[in-house]
């Protein structure tokens, strides 16, 4: 694990200004930021751990749990919100038994939210593994998940 991190750190010099690019590089490789990798990032950049965590949690681009095989992102932009994306999110959470930002124990499913993805015309939107699903309803959610889950 440490070797892999060393490789990721290699192009950087370890200055505190590099914190965000380093966080991005580590997430790019691992898919998320763990306490362990953030601890190493703190060591490498000389930025206190609490600040590394603060910065990482400030930006929505970073996640702290691994991504599931099926990664479901619910758009929470204004247009989608108005058309009921909140309900959709609750629905998905209910079906999978996990909360936004979490991943199922078997690492099969994860849920996340996004800001507007620029597809307001077909709101509300849910992105599943990079594929945009338009005009979602709770029923459609069940459909997608069932198909996917092979239920």
């Amino acid at each position, binding site marked *: 694990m440490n070797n892999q991190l060393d490789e990721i750190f290699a192009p950087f010099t370890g200055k505190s200004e590099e914190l965000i690019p380093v966080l991005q590089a580590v997430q790019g490789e691992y898919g998320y930021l763990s*306490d362990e990798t953030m*601890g190493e990032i703190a060591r490498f950049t000389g930025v*206190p751990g*609490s*600040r590394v*965590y*603060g910065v990482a*949690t*400030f930006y929505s681009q970073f996640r702290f749990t691994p991504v599931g095989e099926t990664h479901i992102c619910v758009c929470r932009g204004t247009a989608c919100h108005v058309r009921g994306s909140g309900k959709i999110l609750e629905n998905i959470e209910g079906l999978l038994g996990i909360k936004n930002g979490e991943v199922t124990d078997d690492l099969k499913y994860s849920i996340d939210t996004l800001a507007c993805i620029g597809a307001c015309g077909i709101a509300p939107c849910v992105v599943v593994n990079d594929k945009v699903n338009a005009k979602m309803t709770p029923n459609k959610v069940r459909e997608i998940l069932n198909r996917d889950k092979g239920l």
Partner: protein
Amino acid sequence: MKKISCYIDDIRIETPEGVTILELARANGIYIPTLCYHPDISPSGNCRLCIVEIEGRRGQHISCMTRVEDGMRIRTDSQEIAEIRRVTLELIHANHTQDCTSCSSNNNCQLQEVTAYIGVNEERLNKLRRTRPLLKIDDSNPFFNLDHNKCITCGICIRTCDEVAGVNALDYSFRGFATVVSTFGDKPIKESVCESCGECVVRCPVGALYVKETVIPAREVKTVCAYCGVGCNIYLGVRDNKIVSVRGDRESIVNKGRLCVKGRFGYSFVDHPERLTSPLIKSNSSFKEISWDEALDIIADKFSKNQGRKFAALSSAKATNEDNYIIQKFTRAVMGTNNIDHCARLCHAPTVSGLVQSFGSGAMTNSIDEFTSAKTIFSIGSNTTVAHPIIGLHVKEAKRKGAKIIVANPKEIDLCRFADIFIQHYPGTDVVLLMGMMKVIADEGLEDKKFLEDRCEGFDELLNCLGDYDLENVSRITGVDTEKIRQAARLYATNTPSSLIYAMGITQHSHGTDNVLAVSNIALLTGNVGKESSGVNPLRGQNNVQGACDMGGLPNVFPGYQSVTDPDKIEKFEKAWSARLDRQEGLTHTEYFTEIGKGNIKTLYQVGENPVLSEADANHVKKALEKLDFFVVQDIFLTETAQYADIVLPACSFAEKDGTFTNTERRVQRVRKAVNPPGEAMEDWRITCEIARRMGAEGFDFESVDDIVREINSLTPSYAGITYDRIEKEGLQWPCPDRKHPGTKYLHREKFAGSTGKGRLFPLLYKASVELPDTEFPLLLTTDRSLYHYHTSTMTGRVRGLKDIEGTEYLRINPEDARKMGVNEGEMVSVKSRRGKLKVKVNINRSCPEGVASLTFHFPETPTNELTICAVDPVSKIPETKVCAVNVEKTEL
């Protein structure tokens, strides 16, 4: 500095440049509401309540971040300001739980204060109030809680932990409405890097961070912390004869209000149920209570029969100067022997013997407050932030102000986070390292020629000897890269003023005195001593170890380091004490136990010490103690050593008596009684005087400590001018030869204290540690300290919160060594040396280099000193507790 003038609310005010509008207003008694400002830390402009208007400029300005300019006309209030403040404040209230009456900050809350000033609109507030789920209170820390529901996210705790504590346990996490103060990974505080100093708690403007079980004291007593040699000034809050609060004294130059975890939260031992409350006598190997009269009579009788060198006393670095003065006077004048010593033998004896040879005086040359103005701080063999936390804060502050920090330590200690150069040398190779640095300095012509010429002697001898220290060789022995040695040498020699700090890593070696001389050499060579912020600073361990030495708790000197073999001094003290005195120096602490073993010492009187755990090769101490004819222990608890006593006498703790402690910077500070002692416990000096009187001695009829101090003043030149009335508010630093003398901030200003007035350099040879690893005992064991415990934990071990944070010993070993031994984190190992064996859990930790392991000696269940070796330095007789060889093997629980 240039003076400017401005108007605040039409009042004309003159001020030096550079202050902010808020600071100036406050200094002139003009109120501006604030929530995120604290004078100890940088402003953040976060709460926006401190806005003001400036004539000729548009809008409002944040007064905590705007500097005053010449001719400015400032308004602290207007209709517009009032409106903005009201709206801002309502938003804060909307997110704040409203239960003032049950809040521990009620009546002491800045939110209440600003609200009273600004006023809020209840109706609007009710509309605004967010119904958000209550966040869980973080109550993981044993001393304080964090209630997010009351947090106004002012950030004062975050900036305090960064700028004051230098720990950075806290920061803002998440964003928008979800923003909270959190630790790394949003973990409970106890699992974070937080050191529980409580500095953030003290500064939190509301009741979000608060001390558990807050009790408001009925009165406060100003005194001095009883733990380490920093000597922080504190106020003990008392209610119903109980210490209920502790507060740092912000006026004190020593700590400026700051405290470490022990000083702030470590006093519950004072009223611990295990405190000794009555004299005890041993009968059939168990103790039973007896009256003071009986106990004192038995002691007086036994002592009378054992006068002279058959008797030995151990006084206490935890007791006051007055206590120590009386104990040594008793030993010398009544018992007729110089067999008086104390635990300084085990910590800074080489400092006294070494620095006396090189500078003429064995104490810290500078004041604590001077560290922050040093340009280079060189800390060698000192785990500064752990063992002397508040001096650690001074070093961190110096770093913030631009100083360069060099750390030389066999372990990667916490201070390394702040180091510009970290030298991880092999334990016991300090002489080689320092001589190597000196070689670089001399080769590159960086020595202070004028200083050497005018103020030193012995330079040529040193120069000759440096020829033996070829840098490649130095690097091989110390394990440190040559380039690093060069860089450190250059930095220390040229980026002046340089201040050197050292502690037990230098002294606790069989060549401890050489180590100290190497330290004084490098300071003299570069002219880094005898100046402001520049000198040699041995950090003394115990709260009053400096004072115990000053008071003559040593076998070779009377109070004030007056030699016991100097005929003039003997005459002076014989006259003053009307007694015939021993002409011969006494034995040392380490020698006591061998002499007891040989039957030459038969009676031991021990005050406030625990050698069964603290003395090297503790098993030989235990054996010796069993051989004593008569053993009296005077202490506040029944310690591991007290178990061996024939009679145990209950003493007062620091909170139950008056007197003085002398801190590591030679500052004599007032200790004051805050609570009554438990049961029949008495002050140490009073007990000793009672024994003396019962033996028919004269000169022990002291009514109070005032009388004792007068005698100390009259016989101790360096303390002659230090009287209680002069140190009522702030302590004085010795030497202070008369009542007009202001005390001495730093030593050796114009000339050195020794008889020639010159500083002396010494040629030195490398001597290896006595017991180094071999095939049978392949690991080097060194000893260190924890922030949360003190010495043998007689006190800290009885403070529940401290035990909660750190309850047991761990053997720290390098991952590589752990791998070779096949042990995992937390597994049990047996650690064996030639002298003893113990079982302990391992903590795999990169702080130790490969081949080196470390233990503290805080825990009675794992008596580390049963492993260490009693190889002593021939000059100072200190044992080599920093280096011995051990064998570590995985074992069953």
